[in-house]
Structure formats: C-alpha cells, structure tokens
C-alpha cells in the first residue's frame, strides 16, 4: 500500500524584495495589459462569439487575434476602438466616462420615478432643511 505525502514548501523572500523595488509604472503596465486582454476575451464570450468572429470582423488572421490575447500586446487606441466596434462593446472606459454614465443613469431614474411617484417623500414631522434645485442636473437636493 503506497503512502503519499504533500510536498514541502519553500520561502523565497527575494520575490517580495524584487517586487518592492519594481516601479509602479511597470506594475501598472502589467495590470492594465492583462485587464485589457481579459476584457476583450469577456467581450467575445458575451457576444457568444469566438476569436474567428473577431478576426473576420477586423480582417485579421485568427492566429494574430490569438497572439493578441496571449498577454500584454501593445494595443493602439485605434485597435481597441476597432475591437470595441466589432464587438459592440466598450473595451476601455475612463473614470470620467464612468462618472458621466452614472449621472445619466441617476437623471433617467429620477425622471422615470417622477412620472409615477415622488422620489422624495415629505417627512411627517417638520424638519429644518428645505429642497432646492440643482442648476446643472435639475435634481432636487436637500
């Protein structure tokens, strides 16, 4: 009857020492590159398509698309825009765009709700604050 044991582990403190001396720019580059490649893979899957579909849409070979998705390919903004168009999905969204989309969403929810019921229920007991209208969004704020 064979007896198996789990292999032992090894500490390599030099790993953290090297990582702590690695520039933030380098770390950021690796993180963002992997995020972009991952996002493209997700966008292809969301569409229920495969790499061949993207290759056909972009007029590239399937092998080239496969290489793009292997890791940190240096994508140009134009390539990312073309991929986003082909997959009908944003590949990169800037924080500014996220903020703008959020404000649009809040405004739409407010408008939708204001047709049905008041978004703001007047408190039963009297309070010391009053409502004003925000000039830019038209939203009522307390």
């Amino acid at each position, binding site marked *: 009857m064979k007896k198996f044991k789990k*292999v032992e582990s*090894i500490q390599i403190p030099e790993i953290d020492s090297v*990582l702590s001396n690695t520039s933030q720019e380098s770390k950021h580059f690796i*993180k963002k590159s992997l995020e972009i490649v991952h996002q493209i893979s997700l966008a292809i899957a969301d569409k229920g398509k495969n790499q061949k579909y993207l290759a056909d849409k972009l007029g590239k070979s399937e092998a080239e698309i*496969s290489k793009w998705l*292997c890791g940190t390919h240096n994508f140009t903004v134009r390539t990312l825009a073309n991929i986003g168009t082909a997959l009908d999905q944003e590949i990169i969204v800037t924080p500014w765009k996220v903020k703008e989309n959020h404000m649009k969403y809040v405004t739409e929810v407010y408008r939708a709700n204001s047709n049905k019921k008041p978004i703001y229920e007047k408190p039963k007991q009297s309070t010391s604050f009053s409502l004003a209208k925000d000039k830019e969004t038209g939203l009522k704020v307390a």
Partner: protein
Amino acid sequence: MIATILEIERFKFKNVHFYTILVSSRPRAEFQDFVDRMSKKCPGQLGELLQFIDEIGQKYNVEENHFRHERNSHALPPHYIHLAANDSDEQTEFGLRLYCCRFTPSIVVLYNGDLKTTQLPNDCPNVSKHFSFALDATRKIDQARNDDYIRFDGNEIHVDEEFIFEI
C-alpha cells in the same frame, strides 16, 4: 541527481499553486536561483515577470494562453510581451525567459531561465542548459505521474514516500 519538488509559499493562490524543483547537488532551488541571479542581471524585467505571475495567480485563471509553448514545456513571458528593461538591466535581443510547465490549470512548476540571446534556445549559451533541464524535468514528472509515484490533487502535489525522484 536526486530532486525534490517544492511548493513556492509566496505563489500559493486560491486557484493555482506554483512549484519549483530542488536538485540535491545544487545549493538553491531552480526558481530561487533564477530570482537571485536575475535580480542582479536584469531587475527591471524580472520585476515585471514576477508581477505577471502574481497577477495571473491572484486575479485570473492560469490559462494556456498565458504561456509560451516550448515543446513539452512552457516559458514565460508569453509571446508579444515585451518586458521593459530598466537602466541597470543587461540588454539582449530576446529578453528574459523563465522555463516552466503548466501541468494543469491549478499546478505550474517554475524551473530556471536567463536572458535569451539567440532565436533557438539550444543555441543560446545562457538558456540552453535551463531549457534542457525544463524538458527533462517535465518528462520525468509526467512519467512519475503515469507510474503513480506523483499525484496531482487540485492545486496540491503528493509524492509517494518511497519514491526517489531522479533527474
């Protein structure tokens, strides 16, 4: 040469554990030797490579396409990653290579490597011995698995207590 498989404590993640090999006649484990030597030779590229391993381990499933295929083994970084050298890095046309093997999505063994100077690894005075070692080690591990001396259980490797692993 008698060898031992060791789990790298720093690279144990939820979905994948990374391992290396210690050869009895050598003072350091293969991946430990790689980190030690490359931290002096090309710290910039090594930092980005370690960051890459850390990222794929923490956030992504370790997929086949995260690796470069090298016969029965693999290498890092994958194709079209251009690790950025810093000012203190030695410069070579082909950059840093770490030979390894992704046996399963949960088990990766990291061997050794160096700065690659030629198109073919066998022609490169820096990496040829590490490349040969990687091919040999992968073959021996596969053989030991087939003979039921080594078992993969999720992200853990279990070895028969009486098995002597020779490379």
